[in-house]
């Protein structure tokens, strides 16, 4: 008996499931403990010592990718519309906050939500055009969007063109400079995972899943599929834009190649597919696994070329042999630990 069928039978998904209360409680405990641990991590600086900045940096990177993959999952996972250009929102967020910092002196820590909203507005406008159709045209349009945006930013003087834009350094002492970035990313990551959770357990999420399964039937069932798709697409831009804002500030230097390269989109796609498309915990699991793997592969091989090959190979193997990803596969086999079962 697969979990999937069971879930379908008890839809809507937020219906109470009596036999799962104990696992639900253990899940809550694990999550609370994990949150506390992440919140307190910077306080461990005296004990961590020298590698503290490295630990913080890894934390920032992992949290950023969790935010990115969880957001991508809204459109690519739940709705089944693959976006190969989602890092456009990342770049727009990064540049929006960067420009506000350079020209207005506003700190990206304050403007990150605003940049997220700018990304949402942009996503909405793009979605109005590209989500009129179903099927492969959307995917193609996202790829075109990415190359187009990259081209514009490469040649736009206001943002420094391909030379980039230098940002004022953050006003913090070197030893603890990473801490505010860490907390900002933590908020963004938790926000995006929580958003994924809320969507998964809402009527909206149900509509998105219906679209993924069979868009024609969803339409016949009275779902305004176009509105739902546009909503999912623009919503999925918010935390990606905010993450771009914080990430750009942490680099203190914005260049189109930091944001608008397909490799970033590839990572987002891969993380979600490894973790499990359309699951709440999957994207986070995929992000953690892939950041770890990248870290190992860079230290082992050192070359970014081989890293691309490895990314592609993993994608290929997962697609062919574990299309449900870690979370999906474990659930199908009945081995999914309760603290990962959020659906």
């Amino acid at each position: 008996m697969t979990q999937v069928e069971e879930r379908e039978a008890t839809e809507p998904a937020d219906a109470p499931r009596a036999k799962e209360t104990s696992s639900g409680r253990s899940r809550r405990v694990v999550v609370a403990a994990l949150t506390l641990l992440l919140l307190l991590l910077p306080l461990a600086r005296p004990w961590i010592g020298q590698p503290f900045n490295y630990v913080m940096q890894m934390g920032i990177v992992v949290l950023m990718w969790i935010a990115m993959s969880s957001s991508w999952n809204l459109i690519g996972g739940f709705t089944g519309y693959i976006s190969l250009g989602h890092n456009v929102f990342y770049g727009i967020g990064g540049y929006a906050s960067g420009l506000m910092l350079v020209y207005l002196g506003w700190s990206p820590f304050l403007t990150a939500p605003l940049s997220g909203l700018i990304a949402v507005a942009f996503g909405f406008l793009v979605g109005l055009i590209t989500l009129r159709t179903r099927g492969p045209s959307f995917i193609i349009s996202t790829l075109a969007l990415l190359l187009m945006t990259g081209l514009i930013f490469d040649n736009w003087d206001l943002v420094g063109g391909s030379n980039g834009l230098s940002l004022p350094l953050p006003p913090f002492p070197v030893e603890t400079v990473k801490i505010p970035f860490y907390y900002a990313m933590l908020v963004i990551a938790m926000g995006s995972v929580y958003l994924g959770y809320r969507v998964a357990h809402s009527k909206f999420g149900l509509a998105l899943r219906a679209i993924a399964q069979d868009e024609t039937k969803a339409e016949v069932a009275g779902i305004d599929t176009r509105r739902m798709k546009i909503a999912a697409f623009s919503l999925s831009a918010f935390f990606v834009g905010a993450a771009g804002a914080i990430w750009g500030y942490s680099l203190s230097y914005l260049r189109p190649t930091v944001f608008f390269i397909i490799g970033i989109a590839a990572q987002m796609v891969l993380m979600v597919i490894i973790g499990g498309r359309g699951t709440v915990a999957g994207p986070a699991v995929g992000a953690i696994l892939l950041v770890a793997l990248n870290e190992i592969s860079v230290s082992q091989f050192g070359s970014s070329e081989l890293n691309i090959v490895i990314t592609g190979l993993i994608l290929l193997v997962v697609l062919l042999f574990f299309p449900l990803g870690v979370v999906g596969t474990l659930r199908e086999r009945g081995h999914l630990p309760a603290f990962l079962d959020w659906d």
Partner: protein
Amino acid sequence: MTHLVQVVILGLLLGGVYALMASGLTLMFGVMRIVNLAHGVFIIAACYVAFYLFQGPGWDPFVSLLVTVPLFFLIGIVVYAALFPRIEGSPRFTEMTVLLTFAIALIAEGALAYFFTGTFRTTDPPYKTDAILIGDFFIPTAQFYAAITSIVLLLGLWAFLYFTRTGYAVRATMQNRTAAQIVGVNVRRVSTIAFGIGMALAGASGSLISFLFPFFPARHWQWIAILLALIVLGGLGSLKGAVVGALVLAVLAGIVSDQLGPTWSPMTFFGALFLILLIRPQGLFGHQARVG
């Protein structure tokens, strides 16, 4: 006016090569509903084949067609047989093909970059900078030869599709897969052949591109984005649409390049894509039902 005609001539010459690249891609979608994101990387791979045949034995890029066409046909057959039958019957087949070919594109790009580095390359046949003068107009020799070759290859494709038994089977499968099956077409075999042909066209394009545009591994993303935009414009799976779209957009891109600078010429393709999605999502020669 003379200047504009000159720009149009150059655009049409390049359009022929674009048509060659795009027709392989749209053939794959038309017959198998495969969106081949790896088409661009295979074109670049063929560029390297032509490049090393030129550097080593000193073969002219046009002679290298004798290698690239059959080689990439074979690669196509192998890639198809190894991957696609596994996902046949997958409920979201086209989406799976996008992801699978995305993976292939990454693997191939990384491998090319690893072996051949990220340096710009180009083949330098002796006629590369020559031009034929007709009245006030000049026709670059290399572009001219490339366009002629593209036309010959496209005519060959057309003859294959309209005058051979397998060609009929390919067209039948494009128009209605079930119908093809029930009249006795072995669609698996036809699909394998069609994928091989699409890849052979990619191989041929690589030979031609090798002296027309400088290339390096990561360049394939720009190509594939342009080509995909082009076949959406023409109507996914429509060969006629791919050819017409290629010619029209190449001319427009030439005009944009002339007016705003070459940097902006790819914008023509992307702009046209968004415009067509806005006014006619199924493309110029597409059918609404087919895209669904």
